[in-house]
């Protein structure tokens, strides 16, 4: 197994499709995310963003086409792919009955950290995300903003070359949104960042390139300023690429 690269991982999707029965959640997507790139996946709810992320992480298998992280298949070579991924799910998907430090210990251990390395990583991450004061508290008793910080902290703990973030600021107040964007902004460049969002401001602030999905199909792909700078960017969310020109 080759070691994860320090400057980010490459994500490659070719003809990627996913069906749920008759429903086509993702259709024939071709995209390459370069190592170290900050890439945004935009679209309305149900456009296929989360499905794409689940295919990249190996949580779902593709119906057609292929996806690879640094050349590794997320299903057949899950260990190699998961060693490269830090994942922050849409809304805080955490264990409310665990304490913050205990949860981070678990998150580090299941990503291969152990012994002194694990302890150091936990302390650094607690400090980085300003979680020292709540390290001994139950996650379920924390505010949404703190829970999202914990969610981000577990993703950064093992210093992954690919950070996948699904709707990072959903349900947060403006101050908390700003905090999360600040953390993600710092992370950009040091690793590959794949962000799913329907917030255009967030996409502008955090990504260099975006793809816009509508009903599972890619309707626009290019530099963020270019794609979102055309006419009415919301038209893209409605699948009207010509109107957005």
């Amino acid at each position, binding site marked *: 197994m080759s070691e994860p690269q320090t400057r980010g991982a490459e994500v490659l999707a070719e003809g990627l499709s996913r069906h749920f029965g008759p429903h086509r959640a993702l259709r024939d997507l071709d995209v390459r995310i370069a190592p170290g790139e900050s890439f945004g996946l935009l679209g309305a709810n149900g456009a296929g963003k989360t499905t794409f992320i689940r295919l990249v992480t190996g949580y779902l298998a593709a119906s057609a086409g292929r996806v690879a992280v640094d050349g590794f298949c997320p299903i057949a070579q899950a260990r190699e792919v998961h060693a490269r991924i830090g994942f922050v799910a849409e809304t805080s998907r955490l264990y409310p009955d665990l304490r913050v430090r205990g949860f981070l210990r678990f998150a580090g251990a299941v*990503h*291969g950290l152990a012994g002194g390395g694990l302890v150091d990583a936990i302390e650094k991450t607690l400090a980085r995300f300003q979680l020292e004061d709540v390290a001994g508290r*139950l996650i379920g008793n924390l505010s949404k903003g703190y829970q999202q910080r914990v969610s981000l902290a577990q993703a950064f703990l093992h210093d992954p070359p690919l950070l996948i973030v699904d709707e990072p600021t959903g349900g947060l107040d403006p101050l908390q949104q700003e905090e999360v964007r600040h953390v993600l902004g710092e992370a950009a460049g040091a690793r590959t960042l794949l962000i799913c969002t329907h917030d255009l401001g967030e996409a502008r602030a955090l990504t260099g390139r975006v793809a816009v999905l509508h009903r599972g199909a890619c309707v626009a792909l290019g530099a963020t300023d270019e794609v979102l700078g055309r006419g009415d960017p919301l038209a893209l969310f409605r699948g009207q690429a010509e109107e957005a020109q």
Partner: protein
Amino acid sequence: MRPWLALLRKELAVAFGSPMAWLTLAGVGLVTALIFFDHLRIYNQILFLYATTTMGGFETDTVPTYVNLRDQVFLPVMETLALTLVGLVPLVTMRVFAEERSRGTDELLATTLLTPTQIVAGKFAATYLLVALMLALSFIYPASSVVRAGLGMPHLMVVYLGLFALGIALASIGLVCSAFSTHQLVAAVSAYAVAFVLYDFRWTAQFLPDTVAAWIDPLSLHPRFGSFAEGMVRGGDLLYFAGYVLVGFALARFALIQARVR
């Protein structure tokens, strides 16, 4: 720490972080105490009856041989404890996979270095440990009756081996139901249904020819536990219970993998 050991530790922390594990353990302790003291009370009443009717106190030959601590207290308590496991184990197992799926944390687990086999192994091991803890809590009363009845520790150990085997078989049923469910309630109800059907096939004797009923009966859980209760350890019974673990493990693993391609 190995990833699957970290998962086992997390499972135990989550289990004891919620009231269900504590309530279940308290339930086992309470039910065992109530059943034990109730049977002891009845046993003492029977002895008193014999004492008063003979008007001569406790002469050994005035009390029938079947009136003893083993048959009047120990074995009925063990039988009821086995049935108590059917009622309580699904409460422990219902959340193990279903809660993970309903909270969406299964997606988080799926992006770690844990393989589906390790996830299932960690969750099964943690649940079996909880079952062992439930049985350990119930040990004190039977142990005291062993001292009084002169049953001997080996017999008690065999009975508890049987109870543990029954407990992990029931846990395996519950874990499979949880692995195929998103809702804890659905997981619990389906586990009860499967466990009660498999517990004792004697009810089928009303509908089936005697030969068929006699063939089916050994496939149920109760007669297999019955051998242990009588102090016998048979290879066939151990294999029977091990089958639940292996089939349960394979089905739960299948459920995790199948969810990716559904």
